[in-house]
């Protein structure tokens, strides 16, 4: 939880007009989301909840991958650990979900702090593969502890009967929960993007030696960023588990979830708050739409869209427009020329 406090420090005293405008915008979005909730049927609510979930996940990844520049390729491990923590304490120790939820985040954050110490010394692809190794390894651990986790057979959260301390939330309930998580994550992201801690992370991303030379404790900052990111991811994992009821290690530690987070952040614009937000909404919406309307070839079309997006705007949508605004040049061809060999 210390990471959280640190992250919040910079909030105080941003009383500019911009903040008020943004506050108003957030209120409008929340109001809109609540209105939508009453209009949509259950299945659509579930689909929108998934979008909210990926907003939160991509914001979480953005903190370590986008701001700090450490591409955590095993981010799903915190999703899985938070999720399994929740399932186990709810099933075996009869915790209420509302108690398990924050604890799952803390559990993931502490785990991140522990593995972060050695792993965050690694750079670039090496860090990526090491975190991937942790995620794959933890999945194996979960599979191999069947007495605790149910192993490959999966585990079910109690939603009915005497041990069910928290009533199942239903589609509308989970909609609110994931909306809350998305707002929380975007809030944290906004905070980090504008405070001392976040600037420290960006400095680390650009050059670690130079960051250390201006007094940034790079080790502590990186571990804190990793833990903060893990906290959010863990809390999302916990909520996902309660929504799904029965979970399996293959899905909870599915590398595709990590890839999706990265894709959303990078295509939207890494190191910004709006980027991952748009990336998550856009990509999840598109993939959902394609799956529904092109049952047989949807992955093909999605792959083509990803390839095109990556080639046309490798710096991500938000960064592309920002650069365009600065240089007054929105030409995609010029953009390609900049990044090609």
């Amino acid at each position: 939880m210390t990471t959280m406090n640190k992250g919040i420090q910079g909030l105080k005293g941003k009383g500019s007009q911009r903040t008020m405008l943004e506050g108003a915008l957030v209120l409008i979005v929340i109001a809109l989301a609540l209105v939508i909730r009453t209009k949509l049927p259950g299945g659509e609510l579930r689909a929108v909840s998934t979008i909210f979930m990926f907003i939160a996940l991509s914001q979480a990844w953005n903190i370590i991958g986008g701001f700090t520049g450490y591409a955590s390729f095993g981010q799903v491990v915190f999703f899985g650990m938070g999720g399994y923590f929740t399932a186990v304490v709810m099933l075996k120790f009869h915790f209420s979900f509302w108690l398990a939820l924050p604890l799952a985040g803390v559990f993931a954050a502490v785990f991140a702090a522990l593995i972060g110490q050695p792993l965050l010394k690694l750079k670039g692809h090496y860090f990526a593969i090491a975190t991937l190794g942790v995620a794959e390894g933890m999945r194996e651990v979960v599979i191999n502890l069947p007495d605790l986790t149910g192993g490959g057979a999966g585990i079910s959260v109690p939603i009915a009967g005497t041990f069910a301390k928290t009533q199942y939330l239903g589609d509308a309930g989970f909609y609110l929960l994931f909306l809350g998580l998305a707002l929380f994550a975007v809030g944290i992201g906004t905070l980090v993007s504008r405070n001392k801690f976040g600037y420290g992370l960006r400095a680390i991303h650009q050059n670690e030696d130079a960051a250390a030379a201006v007094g940034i404790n790079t080790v502590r900052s990186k571990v804190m960023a990793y833990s903060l990111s893990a906290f959010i991811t863990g809390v999302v994992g916990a909520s996902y588990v309660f929504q799904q009821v029965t979970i399996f290690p293959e899905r909870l530690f599915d590398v595709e979830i990590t890839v999706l987070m990265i894709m959303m952040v990078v295509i939207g614009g890494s190191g910004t708050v709006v980027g991952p937000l748009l990336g998550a909404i856009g990509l999840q919406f598109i993939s959902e739409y394609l799956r529904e309307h092109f049952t047989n070839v949807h992955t093909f079309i999605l792959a083509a869209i990803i390839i095109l997006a990556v080639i046309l705007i490798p710096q991500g949508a938000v960064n592309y427009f920002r650069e365009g605004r600065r240089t007054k040049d929105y030409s995609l061809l010029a953009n390609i020329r900049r990044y090609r060999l």
Partner: protein
Amino acid sequence: MKKTPRTSAAIIAASCLAVFGINAIPAASAADVVTITLGASVPLTGSLAKEGLLTKEGYQFCQEKVNALSTATIGGKQKKIDIVYQDDTSKPDVAAQNLSKFNDKGIKLILSSYGSANVNAQAAVVELNKQTMVDSGGADDAIFNKGYTRTFNVMSPASEYATSMVKAISEMAKPKPVTMAFLSADDGFSKTVTLGGMKAATALGFTVIGPQYFPNATSDVSAALNKIKADKPDVILGSVHFVEGVAMIKQAKELGITPKSFAQTVAPPILDFATTLGPLAENVLGSSQWSSVVKGQEKYFGKASNYASEFLARFGHEATYHNAEASAACLAMVLAIEKTKSADADKIKTALSALDVQSFFGRIKFDSTGQNTFKPMVVIQIQKGKIITVWPRAIAQAKMIWPYVK
């Protein structure tokens, strides 16, 4: 150097275009026809794409047969079945979400996905949405011990998979083998299968070795084989999926492990098993939910043998038990619809609970948990590259070849 890539680029481009087929959309119904829409979310991409496709074929075949032959009416109008498909990408959360989306569109009658994890997630949602689902792809007992009342499984339960082979060997193998080694993948379904089989084997007086577990979906089971090598088991019984099943046979050969017979769940009845293993597949025993000699018949598919031949004509490959399971699930749903003359999920749920029919798939009847405990599994053996039913004795096409000599 520079021309070759362009040519191959053209080939790739052409093949890309070729695969972009557009799905045929079912024709709109005429005025005197009432169409009942079933929802089916199946894995068409991802790790279960193969089984998902077989399942879809089974549903499709059922729809075509029923619509062609049915004279049943609802409210004086002729009844037609339409099935809406969604790809769940082999992921449980998507499989569940798809059902909720069906529910939004008023589709309350569901044909299940493939794979225990997917069906497990679907069963929970079906309960919440008050839909009714017939399951053709998730046999794990864990789905049915949660008190759900709206999911009905046409298959024999997981615990029967290995048990049937143990019984068959006990009845038919002469000289009767003594030791039986159990090797198993470590997913929930395979473990349930193995524990059931071991219990049966002990009860029937076999000396049980193992179980030795290996990771689900591995293509290297040599460690498990090496561990039982010294025991020289008479029978090696594997609770496997296709990949581990093939690996087990190949690697046992490589390692010089020669039991009197191999027996495997799931893998041998898949057509690819005999084609990929060739002579090595000979005489391997397998347990199957269905074979073309299963007894029973009804008006749509006739006998199992009719099902097999018509399926072959329609899809160009032999019907596997995955196909048959799916058709049977769809059939159960259709029969319930015809009985109630409605598309009401609650009424159909009640009708399914009471259903008892002899079909090409064998007896379809559900116990109080929704499982079909009334249908025995069949045991097949690969003989001369063909899948031959050898047990139960009453429907056997040929005698079990024993022992496995080679």
